[in-house]
């Protein structure tokens, strides 16, 4: 299908992007960067914005360690997380998860900031972000605002970002060196949307957290002793059935993903 016509703006700075968004009035303005979710949604008629604000030309990409955090620029593409040696060293959990996003062409173009701002409940990188913890750095008319990741995802395709705010970076907490990380996903085909996925961080004392994707309206975070978490996850999640799988099967997959991600994290901690 052909998208409905819209206006297109290519701001030269974040400030200009914010002022376009803030000045949109009653018009539906949407931010685009890689466009790997948005352009198909435009073509399918699922998104019908009046104006698109393109961030893809702004220099917002890049990954750097800042104290105990890693700052990921909004337009850093999935492929960088997956393949760049320094990115892999700093964020092994994101590297493992990024491998499962879309397909190679989607990962070449799709961005980390875009994945978080889009907030698809089955997406891998929001799950990784919540597992790390940290903050989303947004710019709005009032300047910079930092949103804790624990409060960022509000529901299906819904985040705490305001309509006049631009996500410019995400700062992820780095787990202590002695911790291990692991990711596991179950999907119908390689690189298809996750039926369920899990990201885990395990401390040497056995305390763990695991975050589940695809089984609720946002990433779901659980903490506790490693051995007790999978059962706790399976008991707590309330997935919905869809055309692919039943709710009961998805609940079971949540437990499987949690167990396997935790096992990998435990192994990683011992390594």
């Amino acid at each position, binding site marked *: *299908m*052909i*998208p*409905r*016509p*819209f*206006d*297109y703006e*290519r701001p030269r700075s974040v400030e200009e992007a914010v002022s376009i968004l803030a000045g949109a009035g009653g018009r539906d303005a949407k931010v*685009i960067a890689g*466009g*790997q979710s948005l*352009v*198909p949604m*435009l*073509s*399918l008629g699922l998104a019908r914005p009046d104006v*698109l604000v*393109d961030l*893809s030309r702004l220099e917002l990409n890049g990954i750097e360690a800042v104290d105990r955090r890693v700052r990921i620029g909004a337009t850093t593409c999935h*492929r960088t997380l997956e*393949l760049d040696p320094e990115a892999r060293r700093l964020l092994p959990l994101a590297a493992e998860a990024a491998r499962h996003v*879309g*397909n*190679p*062409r*989607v990962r*070449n*173009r799709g961005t980390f900031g875009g994945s978080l701002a889009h907030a698809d409940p089955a997406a891998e990188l929001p799950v990784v972000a919540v597992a790390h913890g940290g903050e989303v750095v947004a710019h709005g008319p009032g300047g910079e605002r930092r949103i804790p990741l624990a409060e960022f995802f509000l529901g299906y395709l819904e985040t705490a970002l305001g309509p006049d705010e631009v996500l410019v970076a995400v700062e992820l907490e780095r787990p202590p060196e002695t911790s291990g990380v692991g990711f596991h996903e179950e999907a119908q*085909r*390689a*690189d298809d949307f996750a039926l369920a996925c899990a990201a885990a961080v395990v401390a040497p004392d056995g305390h763990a957290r695991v975050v589940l994707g695809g089984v609720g309206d946002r990433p779901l975070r659980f903490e506790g002793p490693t051995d007790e978490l999978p059962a706790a996850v399976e008991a707590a999640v309330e997935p919905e059935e869809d055309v692919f799988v039943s709710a009961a099967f998805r609940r079971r997959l949540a437990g499987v993903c949690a167990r396997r991600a935790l096992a990998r994290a435990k192994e990683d901690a011992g390594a």
Partner: protein
Amino acid sequence: MMLELLLNGRRLREPVEPHVTLLRFLRDQAGASEVKYGCGEGVCGACTVFLDAVAVNACSVLAVQAEGARVETVSAFAGDGSLHPLQQELIERGAVQCGFCTPGVVLGSIEAVRLGLAGDRMTIRRSLAGNLCRCTGYGKIVEAVEAYRDGEGAA
């Protein structure tokens, strides 16, 4: 808007509406019918092109986002009258049936080999995720990519 880009080395300057995808622009305005329209939603890979040397689905990029970019279709990889070595391998191994997915397979696999992501059959298969062949000729395609990797691709 006026769009300026390099298509297979040729400079194009064309008016384009913001809601036109790169795929539609290439096929309908630039005459690049070798870029195939499959699903139109980023799943099948038939519309793969290189955008500034990176493989993307042309259906999932707006034409205006390619302003100033270097766009290469599969035609950039075949010389006059001669085929790219991977195309040759695909033909010799019977990996081209209806041929609709082939341009995307060629470009996706050239990138995979270039990035060292075609080390074994499993990684080749992973690299081909997002290139749907509805003739289901994947086995032959994987063999052809392997042969290409072992030949010039490894050089």
